[in-house]
């Protein structure tokens, strides 16, 4: 079976202006969302408390509200359904430091008489730990990008590295915009998803860049946009296939993985789509605009080859003892 006959090169770069407009609109509106609505930090980063309660039958949310409201500890608590009608999450902005009697114990007592229930999860994150996790989280995103930047610059050329990092920032920005739009709880697992997007989207970009690198060395054409079009077309079937399989895998995770990894799955879902798009329509055109020049690349490569040849010669002479 084949989806792509790739008999003809597709003119991707001709559409790059349109793509750029779309990207800029998406990124800007993401920043707009981040600034107005902001990210909805969950307990991991904001600190606070989560109590997950499961009832034998449908959870009596109204009754729970009235019973909990009489307790000082649950002031300002939000009580919402979680995944199914018999499961409820109680969220608190506060976190108690008491070890011997914690919020789970208090909840158990406060909810007495609301029906048969089980407390299945209690997460308490103190403000200090929350701050620490947030700092570490931001740091890990930055470090990952820096590491990738260095690696790509080392393996390709600095313009490739810059282009791929811009594509990464583009992807992460849009994914974060989607998080702000949906107001999904941003917890540690979402951070993991964002880092996975970095890796994944870069995968796509690198596969395309690798072809461009190959195309540049092989082609007789000196027009970069033609080489890019050709390379993107050649990798199109791979890009689409891999994205599709990954997309479906993530989709099953999102749909069947359970409520707890729901936000993880959602972030990845957005990331897979945006990452695929960006490797074709963002990373490659930027390479073009950064003024990558095939002729100078060729001459640089030639010089490198000459240098290497000279080194080899020297070594050969050395080994033969002529020096």
């Amino acid at each position, binding site marked *: 079976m084949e989806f792509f006959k790739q008999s003809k090169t597709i003119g991707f770069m001709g559409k790059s202006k349109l793509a750029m407009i779309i990207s800029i609109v998406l990124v800007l509106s993401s920043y707009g969302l981040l600034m107005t609505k902001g990210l909805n930090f969950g307990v991991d980063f904001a600190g606070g408390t989560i109590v997950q309660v499961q009832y034998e039958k449908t959870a009596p949310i109204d009754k729970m509200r009235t019973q909990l409201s009489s307790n000082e500890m649950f002031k300002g608590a939000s009580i919402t359904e979680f995944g199914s009608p018999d499961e409820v999450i109680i969220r608190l902005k506060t976190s*108690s430091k008491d070890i011997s009697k914690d919020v789970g114990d208090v909840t158990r007592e406060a909810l007495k008489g609301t029906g048969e229930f089980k407390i299945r999860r209690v997460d308490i*994150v103190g403000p200090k730990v929350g701050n620490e996790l947030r700092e570490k*989280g931001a740091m890990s995103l930055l470090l990952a990008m820096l*590491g990738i930047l260095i690696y*790509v610059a080392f393996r390709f050329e600095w313009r490739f590295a810059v282009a791929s990092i811009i594509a990464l920032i583009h992807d992460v920005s849009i994914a974060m915009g989607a998080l702000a739009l949906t107001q999904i709880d941003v917890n540690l697992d979402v951070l993991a998803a964002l880092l996975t997007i970095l890796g994944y989207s870069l995968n796509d970009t690198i596969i395309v860049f690798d072809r461009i690198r190959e195309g540049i060395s092989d082609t007789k054409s000196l027009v970069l946009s033609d080489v890019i079009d050709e390379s993107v077309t050649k990798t199109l079937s791979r890009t689409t296939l*891999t994205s599709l399989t990954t997309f479906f895998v993530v989709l099953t*995770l999102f749909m069947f993985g359970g409520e707890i990894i729901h936000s993880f799955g959602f972030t990845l879902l957005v990331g897979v789509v945006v990452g695929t798009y960006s490797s074709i329509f963002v990373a490659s055109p930027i390479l073009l605009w950064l003024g990558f020049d095939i002729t100078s690349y060729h001459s640089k490569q030639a010089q490198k080859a000459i240098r290497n040849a000279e080194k080899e010669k020297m070594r050969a002479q050395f080994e033969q003892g002529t020096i």
Partner: protein
Amino acid sequence: MQRLLKSQKMLWHESTRMKLNFRIVIFTLAIAFGLFFSAPSLLNTEKGAKITLGLDLQGGLHMLLGVKTEEAVGSRMKSIAASVKHFTNHNDILLDTLKASEDEVKFSILDPDDAVVIDEMLKEVEGAQINHSGLNYAISLTPESVEATKKMAISQAIETIRNRLDQFGLAEPTVARQGTEKILVELPGIKTQEDEQRARELISRAAKLELIAVDEDRAMRVYNMTDAQAAQYGDVILEDNENPEVKYLLKEIPILDGGLLTNATVAFDQNNRPVINFALNSEGAQIFGDFTGKNVGKRMAIVLDGKVYSAPVINERIGGGHVQVSGNYSVNEANDLAIALRSGALLAPIYMMEKRSVGPSLGAESIRNSMVALMGGFVLVFIFMMVYYKMAGVIANIALVANLFIILAVMSLFGATLTLPGMAGIVLTVGMAVDANVIISERIRELLYEGKSLHKAIEEGYANAMRAILDANITTLIAAVVLYAYGTGAIKGFAITISIGILASMLTAILGTHGIYSSLEEKINKSKNPAFWFGISKKRLG
């Protein structure tokens, strides 16, 4: 020269053939390794290294505790004051206003001649800074000693909590220092919330035992006194353990504290109610004997964690250092209390910084959900690869299965922890590992269309794809390593499975499938049916 070239060429040929065999052998070994070491985890055998399930999957309690180290300094001052008091009582030295504050002990002597004896005694106090002017003394700790006391409080807390949990009888408790001043406590095997609360109470119990004299001169006025007024007389007001309405006026500086305790056991009194017997060491017994001998007819309070458990009248001098604490507790409570007393008091109170507790039913549900996602994703990819690439897809699928086993095997072997995000990582690895085979298969197809021979198409396909796959995998690995370094608990599990998955995929998806193609090469050539092997159209092949 010509012959040399020729022989070199032959050598090269031979070496490639060697490599081909090499690949399939390694791949087979890898599969055997995967099957063998993942078996204990998959079949849940009794022997063999198994994957540890994270607390989010098996249920349990994870806590990060902080230590209020500054209070350790305060209690150090208090115990210095207690020893000064005992020393002066013992040597008939008269003191005026002995006071212990957060960071200082102050007192004055009445007779200047006593200064020599006092100075001599204070020299024995470790890490103390003594300020002596005229009749007034002020004792504080040197900054180094303050640091040391704080450090000591943390390591002592870790040791104490570990002791208590060991005696509590839970399976595999973890108590470890995290960072410089946090304590990580992980308790798998907690099944109910009641158990959890009991464990938490046991851990956090200060278990600070004090024997304190009742201030008999003012005891009658206790209900009309504020804390500040009591402090003026060097007293404190403490509540009764069972009835908070009942209050006692006690001397601020205890006669002795639990540090001098050697053992604590549960026994039953004549009414068959549990009581706790504890024994003092020789120094404690000496102090206790001295005090009871001198204070017959007065009351002495037994105070645990700031609550008065009983305040019996001293009938006679009590030697031997055996004391009994009665209280209205259940057998469980008495047992836990005895454990806490035996394992020693916490030098400083601890508090909750982070807690994650997952019930076993939620953990089981998470396992079920992620297994469904894993199987679903797996079947999807499996079918897709088979339909799209035919035999090439089947070969890729073999690699995928091998990859799964190897991930499980490596994790079992190193006793790595599988968490919920880790499960997600495995699911994701399925998607990513298959990517390498998509890239390779596409390359091979391309080369076949260009009219290359099968051998050339395979070799060049792998060579060309290799570079891209390597670069792509290394960048993902960079992200995973950063995640491991900066992630906590469950997230680390994600980084681990992703990393192992990527490394394993290099072995299975690249080396393994290459080996399979090489050994099947003749067969593929003979069949003259590339459509069956690579799922390509015959028409375009021409």
